[in-house]
């Protein structure tokens, strides 16, 4: 069995689910954060023999960890809708507990999990743009001058790992495992993107570039939640290769 985990409104996850199903990746289940929130039963064991997890959803599905052959993990956070009547301090505590719990059972799965959970994101590490630019430079990608000061207002794009919103000159490269997917990418960009994904320890990564009039590709941001639909058949081939190949 394969799993796709995401927020209920994640149409990239929905697309991947439908398309992979049509390619014969069966059985495949799409489970949303809201379905997890109302799960009837969770049992997660950690001991000297290893780890195991079983959960039962309200729609009758029961998932055992050992049945899972691969996970496309696009969970951002855990839904706390069902705690709406609790005091805020209790809701926050419960949300922290659930995030910690999800990180553990996802990490415990022996199969490929794209992406593995981290302390700063259930579906991979969200970095500030300053850190991404630093890593991109280490990976051999071209980077522009970046400046930061306590006197400038907080920039929400920077917090999400982007220099700015996309423009007509923005080119996007998506990494899925070893596969580098994009259009008209110079060889150095392909190599640099692979290296960046390695440095970032993130298997599914969207990397954005600003391309100038001299066709130079400058790194402009990255996200562990790539726009999968943009990859089309090539992206589905990459996912299928990883999941069938394990």
């Amino acid at each position, binding site marked *: 069995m394969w799993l796709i985990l995401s927020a209920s409104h994640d149409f990239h996850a929905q697309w991947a689910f439908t398309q992979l199903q049509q390619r014969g990746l069966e059985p495949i289940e799409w489970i949303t954060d809201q379905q997890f929130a109302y*799960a009837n039963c969770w049992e*997660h*064991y950690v001991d*000297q023999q290893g780890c195991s997890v079983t959960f039962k959803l309200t729609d009758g599905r029961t998932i055992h960890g050992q049945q899972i052959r691969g996970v496309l993990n696009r969970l951002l956070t855990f839904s706390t809708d069902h705690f709406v009547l609790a005091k805020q301090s209790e809701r926050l505590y419960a949300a922290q507990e659930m995030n*910690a719990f999800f*990180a*553990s059972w996802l*990490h415990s799965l022996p199969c490929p999990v794209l992406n593995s959970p981290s302390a*700063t994101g259930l579906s991979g590490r969200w970095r500030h743009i300053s850190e991404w630019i630093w890593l991109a430079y280490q990976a051999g990608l071209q980077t522009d001058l970046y*400046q930061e000061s306590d006197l400038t207002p907080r920039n929400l794009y920077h917090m999400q790992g982007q220099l700015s919103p996309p423009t007509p000159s923005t080119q996007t490269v998506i990494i899925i495992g070893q596969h580098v997917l994009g259009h008209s990418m110079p060889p150095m960009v392909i190599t640099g993107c692979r290296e960046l994904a390695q440095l970032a320890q993130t298997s599914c990564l969207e990397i954005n570039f600003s391309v100038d009039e001299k066709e130079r590709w400058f790194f402009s941001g990255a996200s562990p939640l790539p726009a999968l639909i943009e990859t089309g058949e090539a992206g589905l081939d990459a996912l299928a290769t990883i999941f069938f190949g394990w």
Partner: protein
Amino acid sequence: MILICGIPSETPITLVTKALTNLGVNYVMFNQRNFKNMSMRFELNHGQITGLLSINGHHYPLERFQGVYTRLMDVQQLPELATEPPNTLVRQNAQILHETLMHWYEIAPIRVVNRTEPMGSNFSKPYQSQLISKHGFLPPETIITNNPEAVQCFWNKHKQIIYKSISGIRSIVQTFTEDDLSRLDLIRWCPTQFQLFVPGTNIRVHVVNTAVFATSIDSKATDYRYAVNQVGNSAQLTEVKLPDELAKRCVDLTQSLGLIFAGIDLKITPNGDVYCFEVNPSPAYSYYESHTGQPIAEAVASYLANKST
């Protein structure tokens, strides 16, 4: 020059600043409570990081700092913001200053104790436990569940179990007793972590780079940190020397988590089995140093200043 970030009066900070002074190493204090008189900027240009930190009118080029020791508290909880309404400019400015600081030291190619990202593994105890196990430390048998029947089975099997939070929040270890059966249904709201109680000797190991300081803790409390509340007496701390192999494993574990400084909680059973419960990435080591005299602060200061101890 070393940058110290936090509250100057906090003992772990005080001990390190004293140690730096004893080593003849200059330091600058980023006193969080003084945020209104501080400013910071940095730039990243083709892999080179430069910038300026200004404190009370004094200006410090960031390139002059060779190390950072950071024990930042939550900015929004600073006493100077206690009477500030939510989302005021003062609160936002304090937050942005601290974020600029953290963004800088997260990437600066200098010695940082500890960077933010590696400290994150502690946000999930069972997640961290899986990382710890790779170094040969035994994990206590654990179930995390919202199913009361599963807990009942676990208790029936092991007879002595404890429960605690999964994350680092409200992390107080409590013994599960018959009195808790009546409220076990509450876990249906949120999975809770239960563990086999492991008998043995608590050992806290502080690792600073490759230096190892081990302390044995004697207490009848379930959680010796709260021994006075739990059993009426404080714990007894004694310096001990670990076998070389175990000390090396502690160093390797710390490094594998990307940490320079860690407080590792071990328990050694009468059989000699070594369990590891947690790696604390921001250890309040002063409690142990004050009881044993171990030169932990000196080791931190020496590492920051790149001096051998």
